[in-house]
């Protein structure tokens, strides 16, 4: 043991085991890639389609760079210990999504569609709004536990948001799914995307309080722990809610998403496998039940089982009262035609998908133009976001934070699976958007908010514990000499 200066060094290194490096510079480095890659992709599209570097390159590059830089600075200031991967990954997806949306804007075939509008400028604006929302969440939500106070308000909010599309005059039916509302002067909105976050907050708050009752008060039956009837209440309510969405808004995806999210959170809260068995059973019953009388769902299932037949029906122009769509088959052809390495950006024919090529079906364009390699990279990026989210849940110190983080990550994972699986023909198609990639304002904004909440939780989790108050005795013990 030596001098006082030495001792202070010794002191910090002991504390260092508790504190973690902030990793903000890692995030900055990754962000550079997340901006440069889409800029190169943009140049690539311009050269492929018009043989020249696109005129908007500078403004696009600067725009994306500024958005990323502001996001980074806000994280550095308000959530310094937050996960370093989430912001760059989201920026990268948002950036390449914009490029592909712009690429589809250039398609002559899509320009001939009756309701064609240039989607890229709108998407850029929505991305900026999304990042603004991201910043707002980080600045105003100092601690995620504050959300716990709003458990029931969140529930009410979620229900209102979900019902909005059914309000006459406000909601409208867009190609079979009634999940949009029209706000005069502002455009259309998909409230379900925001309801996802509100519901996650409600579930986390509710389950944190009720988890002991749900976990312990149960009867054993045939090797499974069955919950008590009164504890079943909430799960039944959520189940009915998701069925109602399915029936009235014919939105299989959102319904699956909410129910799946709830089951995941319930399982994490109670640590009981029986909930999963129970949940799967209920979703199967619900889906089969609804599918047996909803022609919209039946068509989707038919198109999934035999996309080629559905394609032929749509081409032959049969009038059997069902809207036959060639899209499922067109998407498969797009993926297959891309092969391993793809045709190169701007050189495919994914515009054959027609309507929704830049939203629900945007992954097919990635498949055709960037190939198997590109789609696998995109899927792995989504996988990384989800796993970083669950890592945040593991690191979180409070049950509410754990539940909220896993709920949001799980919902994100299910959404990616349902959309990508639908477009690739793994499961029936549902009308949902690829987070960050697809054209759609609500989706981009809601997902930026989701990332912000995850960053907030991870910041709280990784923030070093406050240093213990300096003990007045410390000096005393040091001066003992032989």
């Amino acid at each position, binding site marked *: 043991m030596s001098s006082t200066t030495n001792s202070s060094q010794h002191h910090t290194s002991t504390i260092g085991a508790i504190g973690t490096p902030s990793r903000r510079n890692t995030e900055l480095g990754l962000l550079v890639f997340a901006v440069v890659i889409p800029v190169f992709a943009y140049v690539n599209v311009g050269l492929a389609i018009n043989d020249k570097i696109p005129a908007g390159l500078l403004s696009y590059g600067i725009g994306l760079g500024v958005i990323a830089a502001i996001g980074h600075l806000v994280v550095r200031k308000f959530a310094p210990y937050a996960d370093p991967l989430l912001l760059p990954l989201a920026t990268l997806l948002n950036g390449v999504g914009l490029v592909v949306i712009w690429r589809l804007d250039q398609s002559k075939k899509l320009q001939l569609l009756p309701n064609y509008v240039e989607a890229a400028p709108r998407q850029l604006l929505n991305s900026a709004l999304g990042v603004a929302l991201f910043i707002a969440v980080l600045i105003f939500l100092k601690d995620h536990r504050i959300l716990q106070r709003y458990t029931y308000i969140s529930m009410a909010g979620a229900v209102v948001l979900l019902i909005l599309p059914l309000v006459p005059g406000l909601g409208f039916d867009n190609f079979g799914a009634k999940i949009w509302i029209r706000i005069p002067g502002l455009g259309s909105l998909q409230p379900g995307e925001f309801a996802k976050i509100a519901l996650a907050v409600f579930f986390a708050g509710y389950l944190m309080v009720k988890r002991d009752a749900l976990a312990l008060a149960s009867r054993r039956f045939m090797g499974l722990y069955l919950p008590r009837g009164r504890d079943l209440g909430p799960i039944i309510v959520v189940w009915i809610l998701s069925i109602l969405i399915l029936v009235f808004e014919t939105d299989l995806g959102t319904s699956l998403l909410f129910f799946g999210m709830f089951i995941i959170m319930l399982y994490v809260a109670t640590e009981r496998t029986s909930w999963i068995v129970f949940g799967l059973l209920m979703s199967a019953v619900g889906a089969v039940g609804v599918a047996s009388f909803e022609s919209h769902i039946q068509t989707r299932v038919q198109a999934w089982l035999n996309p080629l037949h559905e394609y032929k029906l749509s081409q032959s122009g049969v009038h059997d009262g069902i809207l036959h769509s060639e899209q499922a088959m067109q998407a498969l052809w797009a993926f297959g035609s891309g092969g391993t390495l793809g045709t190169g950006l701007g050189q495919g024919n994914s515009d054959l998908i027609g309507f929704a090529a830049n939203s629900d079906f945007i992954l097919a364009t990635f498949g055709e133009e960037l190939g198997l390699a590109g789609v696998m990279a995109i899927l792995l990026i989504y996988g990384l976001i989800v796993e970083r989210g669950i890592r945040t849940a593991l690191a979180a110190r409070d049950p509410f934070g754990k539940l909220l983080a896993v709920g949001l990550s799980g919902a994100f994972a299910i959404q990616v699976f349902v959309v990508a699986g639908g477009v690739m023909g*793994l499961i029936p198609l549902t009308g949902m958007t690829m987070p960050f990639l697809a054209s759609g304002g609500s989706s981009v904004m809601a997902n930026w908010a989701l990332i912000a909440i995850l960053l907030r939780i991870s910041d709280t989790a990784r923030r070093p514990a406050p240093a213990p108050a300096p003990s007045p005795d410390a000096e005393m013990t040091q001066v003992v000499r032989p």
Partner: protein
Amino acid sequence: MNKPLRRIAIFCGLLVLALLVRDNWIQYVQASALKDDKLNRRVAIERYATPRGDIIVDGKSITGSVKSASSDYEYKRTYKDGPMWSPVTGFASQAFGATQLESIDDGILTGNDDRLFFRNTLDMITGKKKQGGNVITTLNAAAQKAAYDGLKGRGKGAVVAIDPSTGAILALASFPSYDPSAFAGNSNKDTKAWLKVQKAQDPNEPMLNRALRDIYPPGSTFKVVTAAAALENGLYTSADEKTDSPLPYNLPDTTTPLKNEGTIPCKNATMRVALQFSCNTVFGKIGVDVGKEKMLEEAKKFGFNSEQFIPVRSNASNFPEKMDRPQTALSSIGQFETAATPLQMAMVASAIANDGKLMKPYMVDKLQAPNVDVLEQTEPEEMSQPLSSKNAQILQSMMETVVKDGTGKKAQISGVTVGGKTGTAQHGVDNSEKPYAWFISYAKLPDGSSPVAVAVVVQDEDATRDSISGGGLAAPIAKSVMEAVIKSKQ
């Protein structure tokens, strides 16, 4: 709560894994099946994405490509003198697919052929656009024009001209014809043009390639095959040997007389005289004397009863395999069920002109890469030897008599030895329909070489029946085709 969290992490990993596996399934395992699916519009888009290579005759292309107005097909095929060349080229239409050379050599023309793979890969790296290769045909533009113009004045028919020494096809014309440019695109206008030339709207069947895809009773032109059979089987050994031919002659085992056209010197006539006057009685009897097996064998050596690929498919001509003796007699003078494509009869004439050797007919000389490297060159190939060189020369002298003194006088060309045979084939129930006028011939230059053999078939709707004869209608067309070939050789 961490144990279930880890499980959820694994579950989410499995979801992503399922997506990755599915992606590999559709983008790797099934990729080529999906990519090449005929219903996948990309196949057609790809086909028309670059200007197609050209089909070339005498160093000049008879096809072209123009930018198309369609939203996804960039280029459209055009044809020069479309109706004249369509029996050779076939068509390549955005809406209706491709046929014949356009279809068979599609890989070369679009540049997708495997043999162009290396070049395409280089082009891709150097940023050059993919180009199609060219198909160089053996056709002779002057002969084709003579053939088509000759037919145009006379109603339905077809002409095939072959270089006997190689089998190279010099002319391949069919009339009425169609212009493949008219429906090369995929607009409503193209659809209308397409429907207009279909059999349902045009009973004259302009889309029918009569030179290759229709069979006609060859009538008296078939007598040269019967004569070849007689010589080859030793029934007679010279053109000037008296044949054992009674007149009148009843079909064997019947009391039905086989009639000649008019009063002609057919009784015990030599084969030369019988061919000169086209005696049904003489050749009917020769057929019976040679026997149906030997007749069939000889016909098959000339190419009957099998499809030909030049490389465009030609229908099989027919010499009946099952028949009794009277039917053998009728078949041997080109009636009953005997039927031949114009290509088949041109092959007969070319084998005789080439001293008995039948060369395999072909119309693609070479396939060229975009940078004019030769990818494939067709070498002349002997198909069979229907008759010996000596017998071929006997038959030549007989056919030359036909043109010099007989029914084929209208095919005479000054300074050139022409051998030929006329034919007038009745058909329809009780011979009710307009007969086909046939003429097959070859030309022989003073140096002994034979540059062209030709077969012409014409059905003239307007001519009265009596005036229809191979010598009157078909021989002048054959003559102008032969002259065109000889002129272009000089």
